[in-house]
């Protein structure tokens, strides 16, 4: 196998930046959550890439990040439901009453 680990990290970095772009630009809360998942997935890939030459620690971190993604998305989607019940929209800018 002659893939430099740096190339894997570049892929992960591209995914991270794309996810960040999505979080900033999308107004739909479900798409924002998806972009967050992309970012977490990128970080998980980076851990596997960083660890693949040094034992299984990277994969352990991957597993732990997976649990984080599951926990975060379950609370996030419950919040999406509440947002939709209250504002009848998924647009996050609907929930922007606080200023100052």
């Amino acid at each position, binding site marked *: 196998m002659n893939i430099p680990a740096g190339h894997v990290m570049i892929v992960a970095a591209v995914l991270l930046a794309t996810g960040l772009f999505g979080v900033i630009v999308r107004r739909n809360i479900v798409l924002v959550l998806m972009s967050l998942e992309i970012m977490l997935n990128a970080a998980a890939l980076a851990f596997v890439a960083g660890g693949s030459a040094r034992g299984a620690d990277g994969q352990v971190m991957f597993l*732990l990040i997976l649990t984080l993604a599951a926990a975060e998305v379950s*609370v*996030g989607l419950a919040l999406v439901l*509440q947002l939709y019940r209250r504002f009848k929209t998924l647009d996050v800018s609907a929930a922007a009453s*606080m200023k*100052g």
Partner: protein
Amino acid sequence: MMTRDLLALGPMLITAGGAVVLLLALAVCRSHAFASAWSVLVLAAALAAIPMTWPGAPASGDLLNLLAIDSWALAFWGIIFGSALVVCLLGFEYFRPLAVQAEEFYVLVLLSATGAAVLAAADHFATVFLGLELLSVSLFALAAYRRDQAISIEAGIKYLVLAGTSSALLLFGLALLYFHTASLRLSGLAGPLLAGHPDTIALYAGIALVLVAMGFKLGLAPMHVWTPDVYQGSPAPVSALVGSVSKAGAMAFMVRLAGVTLTGTPGVRNGVFYGLLVLAIASMFTGNLLALRQPNIKRLLAYSSIAHMGYCLLAVLPMAAGAALDRQAVFYYMLAHAVSILGAFGCVCAASENGREAQHVEDYRGLAWRRPVLAGVFSLMLLSLAGIPLTAGFLGKFYVLASGVRNALWLPAVCLVINSGIGLFYYLRVLGTLYQREEAESPDQFATSTAPSALLQPSPQLLLTHLTLAALVVLLIYFGLMPALASLPM
């Protein structure tokens, strides 16, 4: 060996186990009073277990390779569990008149305190992010806990998006550090950093991402945008939790991180040092200037806490020298800040009735004439936040300033003094409002401020809240007069 490990983990095991037992008990029978009493009991037991484990266990056993349970971690566990205890006490009378089902609140508070405790003791990337996320995930749900209110949902969503982004950046930063130093241990980082690892640019990127993420958690200046909204939208006890438990855990980790990175190669050290310096000064000015004309008391406290985190960084900056005095200054500052902010939000709780929080500064106009004791307590808390002598806040600020002066950090020290002056303005503005006589029938008042006089009548139902506030006042004065805890060895 095993027993000693378990003993060292004791306080954390008590809170985690307490949360699980509480959940099981709630499955059988739902009782708000029981949930509240149980969580208070659990947190008190965790607090009592801290002196038994003091001064911590050496990181030797198999269980403990992920955590560094030293006196630093144990001292912060004291702040974390104590603050969570106060939040549970405040929560009982806050949630009692509300239609929201309140039992899960206590489970989530116990879990978030456990998360903060893990973060304070974290010595491994796995525990760093698990602790941080246990804290964050509990706080998303807590911020949105009053699901009957749109503003609470909004706070939850904002916190979710920003904390989620910051934790993804943190994870990527940790992955970069792992990639280039081959170490998952925080203390293991010190080796490559000290040895002048050739791959410094990756270290910069990794450390920068981690610092940005921790800045988010602490609400430091460019990353502070979530703070006022979350403080305002969350239920008042949750705002108190964010201001005390979450900040204490994150600051404890920040000091560990600074301790490692500030002893690194000159390049890394300078990068981290100036990065933290900019964050500190920006936070002081941003927080205080935005608070100046803030009409909402919860937002005002949020901006004030941004500034306070900036002050506290002043004692983190010289962490390279590793002087115990600087660590003690950070600890005492966070302790004083926790007591004051809990007290201030406790007063907001006490002034609120029937689910309507007294958020507006105008709600407090003339409080001193209707509820003099509460007004006195609130004044004390504000004075402590402003750093007036005889309060804990003064000693905290004094130690931090002394640490800055001792290490010849003149620029941030001068900024701290200037900002304390600016801060006085808005604390005194609120104080003045407290003691102003209410004008009868002012016509320009809108209907929104539904008769504050009726709102702020003393009520017999808030006995527990008042007792909690009294205890906080005692602590505030005690820590202000007898800095015994400031000389803990750490």
